[in-house]
């Protein structure tokens, strides 16, 4: 009976750990130990869960397109590619001779890529971008072993840097292996083209990758093993860095000074996320979701809230100076020219009085932590202090992401604000849609003008014009104060002395397989 099996296994496991096996936790000389807050779902397929798993999955799987330090595209598993038909047809020519870690899989072929795409956008896929990708991808063809043709239902000029790039979740898997595994594929050892393979996985505790034999076409891995540990408590991760038990770990901004004092250097992913305060209920294009009673239904009030907060002080104090004042809800290169709101509490009071709230008003702000985003509750309290000075009384309600998200995307007229982080979409057009278009469940601010601009952007086929339109949209959202824009922040990582060169250039591109060794 099944029960006996479990019982016996548990007893055996119990005995095993009681007797104790060495190996596991020692930071061996040739093991790069990375302490992460979470493994997320700890499943081994690209479609099996969130993008947070890319920390470990990206050492095993590879992508069609890679990005350089400036964000420009580089050939990956696709050697070259073209886009035609005004952005609705993409043709990728694959690199020949890239072998999977499992010999029976041979080298990467168009069939593998087609399969990977189709699994990623399938209805049971748990990947973040699955639903949006499902909407734009019409068909995928594999006319020959090294050619993949993707037909889209709407133009997307940034498919290479976006969905098919290394910052998203289209890791290429071996079709024959995945099919052979059937239902168990999500938990089976992953087979990819990356420089590492899975050595061991202990649920909720450790995932260790070991370097493959021979040379790799893309990276020259310095470390024989990369061992990921799940360490939810930040204070513990900092302790691990200081004790030399971990080589790399994400840390809070407040821990930076102490770590630097202890000889641990800080490597930051620059401006990869944006803590923001979203104001609910201003979906002006949907009568069901537009709450006209709200004080911030009036644009002047939203602008006032932006003027009232000294964002630079918040950056200096809460983010250790690592960030810039935000002009939007997410870092977008095309929005660099959009000026952020200055700190001007007098102007804020003026605007409030104009809008009919000379004595301010009361409001609720819900807050929670995400990864990254441990600072969000702190930021909420700081923002509340500033808003109080112009008469806006904020009640902070700490909660958790699932609860708020349920409410936020549940339809209906919202009446609260929430702290959140801006979407790090490598294709900013998708990010803007997710945040500000009527169709998205998540949108909190929309308007007819914005809908028109978004539609115009989607239909635009000239690249330069697209960028201009995107900038225009950024300016519009800023002027309309579609949210309380706070910070474009960095993500700090503590890095131990044993590690040489290592950098994170953009969100979700971790480069652990490229980490160097110190001399």
């Amino acid at each position: 009976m099944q029960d006996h099996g479990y019982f016996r296994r548990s007893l055996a496991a119990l005995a095993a750990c009681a007797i104790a096996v060495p190996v596991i936790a020692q930071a061996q000389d040739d093991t790069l130990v990375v302490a992460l807050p979470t493994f997320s779902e700890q499943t081994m397929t690209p479609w099996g869960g969130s993008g947070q798993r890319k920390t470990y999955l990206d050492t095993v799987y590879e992508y069609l397109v890679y990005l350089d330090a400036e964000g420009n595209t580089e050939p990956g598993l696709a050697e070259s590619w073209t886009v035609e038909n005004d952005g609705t047809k993409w043709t990728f020519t694959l690199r020949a001779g890239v072998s999977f870690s499992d010999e029976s899989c041979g080298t990467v072929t168009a069939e593998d890529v087609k399969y990977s795409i189709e699994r990623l956008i399938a209805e049971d896929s748990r990947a973040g971008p699955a639903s949006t990708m499902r909407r734009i991808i019409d068909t995928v063809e594999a006319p020959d072993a090294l050619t993949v043709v993707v037909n889209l239902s709407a133009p997307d000029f940034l498919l290479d840097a976006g969905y098919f790039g290394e910052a998203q979740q289209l890791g290429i898997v071996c079709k024959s292996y995945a099919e052979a595994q059937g239902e168990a594929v999500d938990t089976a050892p992953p087979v990819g083209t990356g420089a590492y393979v899975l050595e061991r996985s202990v649920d909720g505790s450790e995932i260790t990758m070991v370097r493959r034999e021979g040379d790799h076409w893309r990276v020259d891995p310095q470390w024989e093993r990369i061992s990921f540990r799940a360490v939810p408590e930040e204070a513990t991760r900092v302790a691990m860095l200081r004790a030399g038990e971990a080589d790399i770990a994400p840390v809070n901004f407040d821990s930076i000074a102490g770590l630097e004092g202890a000889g641990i250097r800080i490597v930051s992913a620059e401006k990869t996320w944006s803590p923001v305060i979203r104001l609910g209920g201003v979906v002006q294009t949907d009568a069901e979701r537009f709450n006209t009673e709200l004080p911030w239904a009036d644009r002047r009030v939203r602008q006032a809230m932006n003027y009232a907060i000294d964002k630079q002080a918040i950056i200096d104090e809460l983010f250790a100076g690592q960030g810039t004042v935000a002009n939007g809800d997410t870092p977008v290169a095309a929005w660099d020219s959009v000026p952020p709101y200055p700190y001007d509490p007098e102007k804020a009071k003026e605007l409030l009085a104009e809008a009919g709230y000379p004595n301010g008003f009361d409001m609720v702000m819900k807050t929670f932590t995400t990864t990254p985003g441990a600072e969000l509750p702190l930021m909420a309290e700081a923002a509340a202090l500033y808003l109080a000075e112009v008469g806006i009384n904020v009640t902070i309600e700490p909660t958790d992401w699932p609860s708020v998200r349920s409410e936020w995307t549940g339809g209906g007229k919202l009446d609260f604000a929430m702290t959140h982080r801006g979407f790090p979409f490598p294709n900013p057009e998708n990010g803007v849609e997710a945040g500000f278009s009527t169709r998205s469940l998540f949108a909190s601010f929309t308007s007819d003008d914005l809908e028109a601009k978004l539609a115009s952007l989607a239909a635009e086929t000239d690249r330069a014009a697209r960028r201009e339109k995107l900038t225009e949209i950024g300016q519009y959202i800023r002027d309309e104060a579609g949210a309380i824009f706070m910070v474009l922040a960095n993500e700090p990582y503590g890095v131990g002395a044993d590690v040489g060169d290592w950098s994170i250039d953009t969100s979700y591109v971790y480069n652990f397989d490229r980490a160097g060794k110190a001399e």
Partner: protein
Amino acid sequence: MTRLILGRLAEALAALLLMSLAIFLLSRVTGDPVALLLGDGATAEDRDLLIAQLRLDRPLWEQYLSFLGNALTGDFGQSVAAGRRDALELVLDRLPASLSLAAVALGFTLVTGIAMGVVAAITRGSAVDVFVRIVALLGQSVPAFWLGIVLIYVVAVHWGWLPTSGYGTPAHYVLPALTMGTFTLAAVTRLVRASMLDALGSEYIKLARIKGLPEATVILKHALSNSLIPVVTFMGAFFATMITGAVVVETVFAWPGIGRLAYESIVSRDFPVIQTVVLVITACFILANFCVDMLYLAIDPRMRDRG
């Protein structure tokens, strides 16, 4: 005797059912995991699709009954947040880590607590006694997570004697067990001390001394065995305290146990896993209490008739 055991079994079943219903209802009230699982750009259609996939659109009673029905065959459903992995397997994978830690912590607590309590009682009024009592008071006043973090910094980072966190070697057990057991250690110490003082002053002991029995025998054989009874009485409560402290300790020390799993599944609204974890933990509790009851009956036959 058989009636007693059967009675206990019936109660255990009732407890499990009650708990499963309570958790089922409570977790459904907290919302659903759908919003969390949806990608950022999801639309209403995507959400409906996911709800249907997770079968959350069926009426509550139907969901509960199907859960019960499946549970009886050993199928506790698939985790929603961990990629369709079998919920029971997920929980049982992590159970050994928690149980072994609780066992070590309990062992440490009992051995050290009893020793300290006895020493304090024997040397009543002395500096040692005062020291022990202060340590016991401290142990009951310090929040476990703070103690854990301080221990990590002092012992592991500053002195470098032990690993900071994680799981694997016997050395990894020390700090978490110490943290987990401190509160209970204090309680056991005070309990044993009080009982020993009681016993040492009793007629029975005076008689033994008059008889001329060696002091060591007096203390160990007679006084101690009597003072252990309250410890056994509270054993179930101690075990419970440890399990409740497990969530905090496992978080701080990155220990891959079910306490942490329970917390994470609650946060991600992973219903199948929440239900499974709670049921497994409840079953452990019941088993522990049952063992304590049996132990009690073995030690003190007078209790047998009281039921």
